[in-house]
Each structure stands twice: as structure tokens, then as C-alpha cells.
């Protein structure tokens, strides 16, 4: 076994007072300590230092935890999206679109719509790089056909536009920050549960 020099002993003593020595190391240190009174005095000084450092801690102000809990924001990860409203809006839009198409078909406008779509494709082919502009033109023609087909189509289109807007709005809106009070009440219940366990 290697002999411990003064520096090693001081380091081990320091670690021991800080609770960092294993059983075997402690036993070895105890043998060294048994030999001399000077080391025992050093140990007492180290213990006094640890005690003084601990005594210099400040107390946390009362209600600190509850104050933090009460000021918790609604973080991004809490804003879990609810798909109920967007789904309802999408269904509404689909129904309105179906109604518009049905209204158009009843008036024999389906053929007109088909012609408009063909016109769109033809225009797109001709336009080449101007595809986007041509698409808009074709879409406008199709809508024009639909709207002019009947009053029902017009109403359904209006409804469709409304649902579509609501759908976009519901997807963009943010969740309201949660009310901290129920959180604090639940925290108290959880704390009691944990303490009972």
C-alpha cells in the first residue's frame, strides 16, 4: 500500500468531510488520523468551515413557489392544437362546395364548369411559363359558371367562403393563457398526495 503524503491526507480529509470518500478510503484515512492529533484538529477546522458555509444560507421568501406558479406563462409546448374547430370548418366548407356543385348541376351548369376547366388547361398549355396567371383565369371562369348557375349555388358559395375563412382563422388563432388559480389548487392536491406517499 502506498504511503500517503501530507497533501494526500489533506485532500482525503477534505473529501471525507464533504461526504465524498468511499468506505475503503475512509477506513484508510481513519488509520492515518489515529496516528496524529494535528490531523484531528485540521478535521475540526474543516467541519467548522462546512458548518459556517451552511449557516450562511438565506431563507427563501414565503410564498415564492406559489408566486412562480401563478406567473407561469402558456409556453409553446402547452399550446396543443385542437382540431375540432378546423375539422368542423373543413366539413362545412366541403358541404357548401357540394351544395354549390349540386346547384350548378341542377341548372345544367356542370357542362359549363367542365368547359371552363378544359379552357383552363388549354390556357395553361398555351401560356407556358404564365401557368399561374392562367390558372387564376380558369378558376375565375369556373367560379363565374358556378355562381351564375342559380341562387342556391350563390348562397352555397358564400357559405363556403365563410367556412373557409373561419377554417383559416381557427388554424391561426392562439390558445388563451391558462388560468393560474386552478393550477395552484391542483398543485396543492398533488403536494398532499406526494406527502401522503
Amino acid at each position, binding site marked *: 500500500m502506498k504511503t500517503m503524503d501530507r497533501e494526500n491526507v489533506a485532500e482525503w480529509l477534505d473529501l471525507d468531510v464533504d461526504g465524498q470518500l468511499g468506505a475503503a478510503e475512509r477506513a484508510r484515512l481513519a488509520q492515518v488520523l489515529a496516528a496524529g492529533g494535528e490531523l484531528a484538529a485540521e478535521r475540526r477546522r474543516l467541519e467548522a468551515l462546512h458548518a*459556517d*458555509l451552511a449557516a450562511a444560507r438565506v431563507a427563501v421568501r414565503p410564498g415564492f413557489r406559489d*408566486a*412562480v*406558479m401563478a406567473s*407561469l406563462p402558456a*409556453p409553446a409546448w402547452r399550446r396543443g392544437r385542437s382540431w375540432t374547430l378546423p375539422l368542423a370548418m373543413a366539413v362545412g366548407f366541403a358541404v357548401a362546395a357540394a351544395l354549390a356543385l349540386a346547384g350548378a348541376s341542377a341548372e345544367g351548369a356542370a357542362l359549363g364548369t367542365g368547359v371552363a376547366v378544359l379552357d383552363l388547361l388549354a390556357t395553361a398549355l398555351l401560356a407556358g411559363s404564365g401557368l399561374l396567371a392562367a390558372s387564376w383565369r380558369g378558376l375565375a371562369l369556373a367560379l363565374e359558371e358556378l355562381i351564375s348557375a342559380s341562387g342556391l349555388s350563390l348562397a352555397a358559395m358564400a357559405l363556403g367562403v365563410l367556412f373557409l375563412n373561419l377554417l383559416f382563422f381557427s388554424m391561426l388563432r392562439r390558445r388563451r393563457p391558462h388560468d393560474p388559480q386552478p393550477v395552484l389548487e391542483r398543485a396543492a392536491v*398533488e*403536494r398532499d398526495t406526494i406527502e401522503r406517499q
Partner: protein
Amino acid sequence: MQAQDEELVESVLAGKVELFAELIERYQGRLVNYLYRMLRNEEDAHDLAQEVFLKIYGALDRFDPRYRFSTWLFRVAQNAAIDQIRKRRLKLVSIHRPEDADGDGGDWELPGDGPTPYQARRNVERGTAIREAIGELPWEYQELITLRHYGELSYDEIATLKNMPLGTVKNKLFRGRQMLKEKLGDFLTD
């Protein structure tokens, strides 16, 4: 059985926001004391500790469970404290009460349920001496002593936080305490 910090984080993320209170309960003392040593002002330490908890809560989904929660918390706290220290000059609070209109100054009356006035004064002096002695240490020792004795982090946690080998942490803490022992010589003997 007490849930691990990392389990609590998972529960909070799963919607049990109220369990964040348990994490605050576990760390508030250590965090406030650590920040108090860094900022040397109790009020500022509490304010910053609150900010740190809010910051942690806001970024909880970015917590990597492979690491310890305590290490993450104290890293955020350390950065926040350093930012604040950079922003302002530290104001040192005197233990002496400023003189009032009658010229009647003296020491603050300290609340206590036991120590005699002599002991109370001695404790204040000792507390001041410890604060000053830590403050006089080279920054790297000061930081480690604060993390160990006020943040109450384990040697492993400090090694992870400071990105240092464990042996270096042990050695620096030993050296730091040796320096403190020398500086506090008179106070340690009584």
C-alpha cells in the same frame, strides 16, 4: 417513492402542469442561495430565481432527458446571473444602518428566536466574513464553492455543468476550501 426530476418534467409536459410546483419546491432554496452568492443581493436573487424558473418552464420541451435536470437548471441560472452581473454594477449592502434624523445609526436589528445580541452580532459578522472571503477567491474557485455549498450540486453535476474532469472539480474545491480556511482563520476556531 419520490419521482425523479426527469419523470416530473415528463409529467408536466404531458399536461400535469401542477407538478412543476414540486420541481420549484426541490430547487428553490438551492437556486436562490446560489444566485444570492452570485449577485450578493437577496431581492435580486429571488427575482432572478423566479425568472429562471419561468425560463425553464417555457423551454421544458427542449429538455434533454439524457442529462440531469439540476445541471440544466443551474446552467440557465448561471447564464442569467452572468448576464445580470454584466448589466449592472453590484451594490454591496452594509450591515450598518444609515444614520436617521437624530444621528442615531447602528446595526440592523436582526430577528431571531434564540441567539443573544452578542451571538446575533457574531453571526452577522461571521456571515459577512464568509461572504467576503468567498468574494475574494479567484473566480473559478468562487464559482465551484458556490455551486457545491449553495447550489448543493454533486461533484458529478458540477463536472458536467462546468465541462471539467471530475478530478479537476475535486482539486479545485479542495484548493478553494483551503483558501477559505486561511481567510476565515479566526472565525473557524470559535
